[in-house]
């Protein structure tokens, strides 16, 4: 345990996913607008699972704004050359039970097919009990939709208080049309804090994320 307690909202999400999906499983976090808090929520949720004893992986799948490595404080995560085998993805240990990797590479994305992505996700499920995919905006790039369909479930992240855009009304229908399993909505930035209003930071529990995670070991744990 690095520091502080987790946001109670994350615990609720973890409990919900445990009840909805049977481990090993993968969950993609997406949204309609940038800045809704996908990466922060993904990192916090991954840490929550890791703290609960799950062997957890977090994959940065947001080529427009890759930020997982920076958020975890492990530097820029290197992207694999291909997704044919999971060994091609160099995972970085960010915390106990928590490895991080990235597929947010333009050259990789061009060569990536949906079947390859699903195969890669299946490989990760073989190695990790829980895989958290931090994707980009669903309507911003094709990879986000591919990731959503490759995962067992999708969480839609929305920033509390931002303006409603037309994409908000059609994101669920779009995901269900491509066969994705939309589990629910996760509002972030709620003034009262988590579900019980504890008011803790989702990522670190202390209001600051980036410096809180220790550098982990390189390679698979």
């Amino acid at each position, binding site marked *: 345990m690095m520091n502080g307690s987790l*946001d109670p*909202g994350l615990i609720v999400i973890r409990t919900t996913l445990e009840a909805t999906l049977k481990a090993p499983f993968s969950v993609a976090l997406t949204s309609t607008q940038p800045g809704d808090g996908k990466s*922060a929520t993904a990192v916090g949720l991954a840490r929550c699972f890791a703290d609960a004893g799950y062997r957890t992986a977090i994959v940065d799948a947001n080529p427009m704004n890759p930020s997982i490595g920076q958020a975890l404080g492990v530097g820029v995560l290197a992207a694999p050359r291909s997704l044919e085998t999971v060994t091609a993805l160099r995972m970085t240990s960010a915390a106990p039970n928590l490895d991080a990797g990235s597929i947010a590479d333009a050259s990789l994305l061009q060569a990536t097919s949906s079947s390859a992505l699903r195969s890669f996700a299946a490989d990760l499920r073989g190695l990790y009990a829980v895989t958290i995919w931090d994707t980009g905006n669903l309507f911003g790039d094709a990879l986000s939709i591919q990731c959503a369909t490759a995962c067992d479930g999708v969480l839609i992240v929305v920033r509390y208080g*931002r*303006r409603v855009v037309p994409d908000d009304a059609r994101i669920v229908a779009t995901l269900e049309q491509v066969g994705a399993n939309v589990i629910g909505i*996760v509002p*972030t930035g709620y003034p*009262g804090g988590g*579900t019980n209003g504890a008011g803790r930071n*989702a990522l670190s529990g202390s209001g600051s994320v980036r410096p809180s995670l220790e550098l982990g070991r390189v390679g698979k744990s």
Partner: protein
Amino acid sequence: MAVFEVLWRQRLVVALILVVGIAATVFTALTQVPKYQATATVLYTGHDAGNSLSLGQLDMATLVTSQVVTTRAMRKLHVNESLADFTAAIAARPAYQSNVMPISFTSTDSELAVDGANALAHGLRDYFLEVTRGRFDGLSTYLDNAIRKRQQQVAELDHRLDMASAGDPALAGDDAMTVLNARLNSLLAERDHSAAELTGSQAQVAADSEHLGAMAPLARKQIADTDYVYRALQGQWASDAAQLASQRSAYTSAYPGMSGLSKKVAGEGNAVNERLSQLDETPSEQSYAYVSALAGRDYHSSVAAGGEAQVSAYDREIDQVRQELARLPEVGSRLAAMRRERDTARAAYDMLAQRRELLLAEQAQAATTGTIEVIDEARVAVVSSRRGVLLNVGAALGFLLLAITVAFLLDSADRRMRSMDSISEVYGKPIIATVKAS
């Protein structure tokens, strides 16, 4: 709770409006000029005294703020402010189930407040008298004038009818046609009689003229018979002629002296003829018989002339009657129109007279309806602090309401995701959990 959530979200706007409002209220309260209020009390007495919501009570409150009462009060007080401002300073409302109504007047001048309340109370009393009784006076005056005018109209029409009847009575009556026809027939009969007499007179004149012509030789003889010269010459000639005839029968023409006698008789015959010629030049009027016949003819001529004049007079009169008969319809219709006009005027006069009698009865009834009396005049004015407090409290409440309204308007116009319900509604999926702002 949703209300408080909205207010919390718009807390800055709410706070801003409240702060500005309270500041404005405090500033106004600190800077406003103190106002004084004085109250006079009036009492309404009448049939319905004691009834709540009586007409008298309602009228009192309405009348005191009427334009008439307020304008008179302003004039009395020499107030130059607008009628609306003056009326706004009046507070008058009868108490429930009471015929007593306080009339308050508010002003920045305490004396004006007292005078205003008293002016309004007295003005209400006077105006109430006017509207309940004065209206009868006005109507009575109007009816009197109208009745007088109708009377004059009827009299004038009667006079015109009398004048028309007097000027031509034959035409004025209803049986003018019958009268005129009878008169015409009578004139025609008289004219016929006169014409017959005229014819007789004219025949007599003709006979007289003929007789006068026949009288001329007789008149000559009568003139000669009465002329002694002629008779002397005639006698001498007759004597000598008889002597000559005797000599001729007894002697021959050679009888001495016969030729001389014959010449003498011839000369005397010439003298007789010459005398007759002289007598022929003598006017016939020298004959008394002729003069008598001439007088008779002149008499009958004058009779005939008189008859002609009478017939002409009858003719003129007949023409006049016929003309009157011809214009009888026009005159009759004019007179009928005048009579109708007079009858209408009389009917209007009768109606006005009845209305006036009714008005007098109503006036007598109204005298018992009720009065307004000033039972307590305003004497001192008090500072209207309660009103100021109420105004300030009202202003504060108003600003609070304004703040709430603005908050809700801003919130309803806000398209941001402001609640869990709105987020769930937008996406159509349940919310698993919320995480704090990162």
